[in-house]
């Protein structure tokens, strides 16, 4: 029973991190119909930016959020205006966008090797090893903070998309960009904004990951793949769906250690991905692809 409870707590906390990781990828796919392969690179860059701020300026990683997130946002604006804007959209642009953004990722990775070498880095704060008792389970403090930030991000995104004019315009562009022009929505501006928000979320995910794990310039690959699994699980283009997808993946991964050797944990998600693609191609939660 104790073990069960502790696994549940781990799963919930892991889900918060996974959701934060996947939001950006899901948002960009939902609106622009582009799988942002540079997502992993931005996660890595977010981690390094946090690390630089921490080691050079002694900034607490969580207090760096107001710096890292806007920087990632601006990077997203630049990436969209400089490159992504010229890509064909939708199914027709699939191959080009995958190649281009994969290229961007490789460039980012290699720049990071140049700047920071390939050594593992980690952020150790005074509270890095502190734990908290939650439902009788000892939980690392960082995990809890990351979970709370993940939840807050979900809430902010949800309010943005359902309560604000700009958020509604983002959803409208996802559903039918042509009629957006008819009511005076500047579709290109919405694309820029969406891509930038998605990139900012990837930067935030990198920051959160840097507080939990060691990283090197190759970081972000596993995160990208897991984000992809989550987005597919949750049904493309829904914030709540992504949160649920993250929860499913985290639960399955955590509980798999009861029956599987731990080196197979990472494979569990992909088995799940294949199963969902075969049996529920619209996502686990029946969310239709917004077309």
């Amino acid at each position, binding site marked *: 029973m104790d073990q069960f409870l502790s696994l549940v707590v781990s799963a919930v906390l892991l889900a918060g991190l996974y959701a934060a990781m996947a939001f950006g990828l899901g948002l960009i796919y939902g609106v622009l119909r582009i799988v942002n392969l540079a997502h992993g690179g931005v996660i890595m860059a977010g981690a390094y930016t946090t690390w630089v701020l921490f080691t050079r300026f002694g900034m607490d990683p969580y207090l760096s959020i107001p710096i890292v997130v806007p920087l990632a946002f601006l990077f997203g604006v630049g990436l969209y205006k400089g490159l992504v804007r010229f890509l064909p959209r939708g199914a027709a642009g699939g191959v080009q966008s995958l190649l281009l953004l994969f290229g961007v990722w490789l460039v980012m990775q290699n720049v990071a090797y140049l700047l920071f070498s390939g050594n593992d880095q980690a952020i150790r704060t005074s509270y890095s090893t502190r734990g908290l008792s939650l439902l009788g389970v000892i939980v690392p403090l960082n995990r809890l903070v990351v979970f709370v930030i993940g939840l807050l991000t979900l809430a902010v995104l949800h309010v943005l998309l359902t309560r604000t*004019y700009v958020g*509604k315009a983002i959803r409208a562009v996802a*559903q039918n960009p*042509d009629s*957006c022009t*008819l*009511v005076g*929505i500047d*579709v290109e501006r919405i694309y820029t904004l969406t891509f930038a928000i998605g990139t900012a979320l990837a930067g935030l995910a990198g920051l959160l990951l840097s507080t939990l794990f060691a990283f090197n310039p190759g970081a972000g690959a596993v995160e990208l793949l897991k984000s992809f699994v989550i987005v597919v699980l949750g049904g493309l283009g829904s914030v709540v769906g992504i949160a649920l997808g993250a929860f499913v993946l985290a639960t399955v991964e955590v509980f798999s250690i009861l029956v599987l050797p731990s080196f197979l944990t990472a494979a569990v998600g992909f088995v799940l991905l294949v199963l969902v693609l075969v049996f529920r191609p619209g996502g686990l939660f029946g969310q239709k692809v917004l077309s």
Partner: protein
Amino acid sequence: MSVLEVQDIEVFYGDAQALFGVSLTVEQGEIVTIVGSNGAGKTTTLRAIAGIRPLAKGEVAFEGTSLKGVPAGERPGMGIALVPEGRELWPQMTVEENLELGAFSPRARKDRVATLRYVYTLFPRLAERRRQLAGTMSGGEQQMCAIGRALMSKPRLLMFDEPSLGLAPILVQQVFANVQRLRDEGLTILLVEQNLKKALETADRGYVIETGAIAQYGPASELLADESIRAAYLGI
């Protein structure tokens, strides 16, 4: 000064020319209709006025101001609205969200609460369905929602592209009744229709378009009585 003045416009789709010098005017408070068969260039004309199709030649002026260089996204803000063919709503958003987004331009947004109330009094059915997803409504209700969305931008010129397409006969009546009602509310209307008889019965003046050029124009009643038009389009 005319509300709308279209002068000798030409439009291409790639290499294929769709409009060969179309000219027309719409005066304040008029219902003007463009009729013609499928592929004659009716929709293209509206899309050119809305700014969605670029002009190769000619000019469009709204209330005396040339629209040259004004992007499509800024025209709703000036007072031009289009109810597109096939409605083109956002299916996964509620009726009210669809309407709210109609008032996206800054000029319309500040009055959106009042305009929304006005649209709901005009179409009480939309008020009943405000929380329903637009994609789950019937064709007639979606048409109302599309008109409501266009009204939310507080237009002075309202353009309809095939509003009766795909609707049951009783709803077709309703659509044309609505067009007349909106004119009575003070709007100027440009109506594109395949249903030539209904359109000419509703309109003040009409233009007949054939293979990308205006073939005939005049008061709607005269066009409706014209032997050649009756023979070509009504089979009488």
